[in-house]
């Protein structure tokens, strides 16, 4: 953990009575980064962000921002700001008044406030006429932008996002994800985003932290989290995955109950004397035609075929359970349920998760 991190969390513990919501969280977030915390509901990510913003107090642990300790500072004095899941726009104020609210609190002149608010409307691609609109007259996406503008008006050192896109429909969410990423690039601010959606995290983030049961499981860039998860939980949380129990003896010879390994001696994905899970994502699994061979092979029957838009997913019933295979639509297999097939994949597409079960 780098001591130079812009936002630095040291061993954060949060307890509600007997329930431990956060169990020793350490995290360093760099300046200007788009950092996403992902986890299923109940993993503690919402609690964590509430602590960071100052809406709850830490039980033990420290939060440092830019070298200064802030965990005892009340929320209104922290240079951080959050975009709420509900957006929390003030229904009794106009769009302009909402955006100007933090400026008004700082006693800026009405003219300066108005100028800044109009700039922010521009930045978020909202027409200037929206200044006088009522919040109830705005659509979901527009409200989203107003909430962002209000947070940016505060000019925080870090902007927190508590799943602000979760209530929107799919298409609008996709648009706003890209806009948010674009806004991040243009403003150069540090964004910390929490979500339960892996897709959102992958599209927008520089780095991702995965949370489970109040602990951070893994922190890495998106590709690494996807391709090299540290645990079964991360692997499965980050999308469809095939996992096979595997081990190696003292000489590094692979031992597997289910996989047919082509050349046990040449494939060294598992260190000697280690055991764990071998992971392969469905898009790397191939159907084996006559005459082809892969490092790992497995035979079974087609159990189901599902169209996923641009891709086709197959479920193959094997001795190791159901294996998922994905192909591009153009590579669709000419087969039907119950047909016997052999599938295979190469070792360079796999990732070994040590000690996982």
């Amino acid at each position, binding site marked *: 953990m780098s001591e130079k991190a812009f936002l630095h969390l040291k061993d954060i513990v949060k307890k509600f009575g007997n329930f431990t919501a956060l169990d020793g969280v350490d995290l360093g977030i760099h300046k200007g980064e788009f950092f996403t915390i992902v986890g299923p509901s109940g993993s503690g990510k919402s609690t964590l962000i509430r602590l960071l913003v100052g*809406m*709850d*107090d830490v039980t033990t642990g420290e939060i440092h921002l830019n070298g200064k300790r802030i965990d005892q500072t*009340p*929320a209104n004095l922290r240079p951080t700001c959050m975009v709420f899941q509900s957006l929390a726009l003030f229904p009794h104020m106009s769009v302009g008044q909402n955006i100007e609210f933090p400026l008004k609190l700082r006693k800026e002149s009405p003219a300066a406030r108005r100028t800044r608010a109009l700039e922010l409307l521009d930045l978020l691609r909202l027409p200037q006429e929206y200044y006088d609109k009522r919040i109830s007259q705005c659509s979901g996406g527009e409200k989203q932008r107003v909430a962002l503008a209000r947070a940016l008006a505060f000019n925080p050192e870090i902007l927190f996002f508590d799943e602000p896109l979760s209530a929107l429909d799919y298409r609008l969410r996709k648009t706003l994800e890209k806009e948010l990423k674009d806004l991040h690039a243009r403003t150069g601010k540090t964004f910390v985003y929490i979500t339960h959606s892996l897709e959102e995290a992958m599209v927008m983030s520089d780095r991702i932290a995965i949370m489970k049961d109040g602990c951070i499981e893994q922190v890495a860039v998106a590709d690494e989290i996807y391709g090299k998860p540290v645990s079964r939980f991360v692997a499965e949380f980050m999308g469809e995955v095939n996992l096979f129990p595997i081990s190696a003896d003292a000489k590094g010879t692979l031992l597997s109950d289910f996989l047919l390994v082509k050349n046990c001696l040449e494939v060294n994905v598992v260190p000697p004397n280690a055991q764990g899970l071998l992971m392969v994502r469905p898009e790397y699994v191939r159907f084996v035609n006559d005459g082809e061979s892969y490092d790992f092979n497995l035979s079974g029957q087609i159990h189901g075929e599902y169209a996923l838009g641009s891709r086709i997913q197959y479920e193959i019933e094997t001795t190791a359970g159901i294996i998922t295979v994905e192909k591009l639509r153009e590579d669709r297999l000419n087969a039907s349920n119950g047909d016997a097939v052999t599938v295979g994949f190469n070792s360079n597409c796999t990732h070994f998760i040590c000690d996982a079960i």
Partner: protein
Amino acid sequence: MPTSLSTRVVLYFYGVVIIFLLYLPLVSVGFASISKARYLSFPIKRYSTKWYGEAVQSSTVSELLTTSLWVAILVTIVSIVIGFFGALAFARYQWRYRTLFQKLILLPIFFPQTVLGLALLMWFNSVGVIPSWKTAVVAHLVWIAPIATLIVSIRAYSFDPALEEAARDMGAGTWTILREVTLPLLMPGLISAGLFAFLLSWGNFPLSLFTTGADSTLPEWLYAKMVSGYSPLVPTLGVMSVVGSFLLILLALTFSWLIRVNRESRTTQKQKIL
């Protein structure tokens, strides 16, 4: 913005103080009712329950209680019926004059009761009705039936109209729906409306004052004695009236609790069988 522990403690304490002050006068009345002396003065030197004995034997008291009870019972029954239909019109059905209706029924609640009582007195006089405890029932209803309607409405608001639509879809007629779906669902609201109606009628004074004619209810009698000078029977009857009310509330709370326990035990039994 977490509420700090000290704020919470202060707020709790404040709540307890308010409740204490709310009931402090009743404590005084309670002590006064068991003071032996004819002229009350604190601290009380000798206690006795003789005033209760006198109250129980007095024929005036039993007359007062009978009148109050009859008025309250009639008001309760009529309020429940009116409140049931009124709440449906207030909260459930979307009809043309709904907002007007909502405002109309708020007016009597806002209205100064003394003036309402006097107005009713003139009205009864103009149409040639001689005031008695029966006219007091009407007077009470003007104020209590709208309150009962509001109480049932709170329940009616949380009621999903789809339930009625589903029943209609399965072929039930309007009356069947009212009886089989609406009535059972609104029942908790009707019970609390009935309780409110009874207790508000039981304790009401300003409406009774001008509309009971030659009859008299308990609060009227108490008021007459209060302004004309101290009588040891005033605190005694006051306590009896309050204790009566609270016993009724206790009864109602126990009853609703029993129903809930009964229902829960039945569902757990079913789960066991399944």
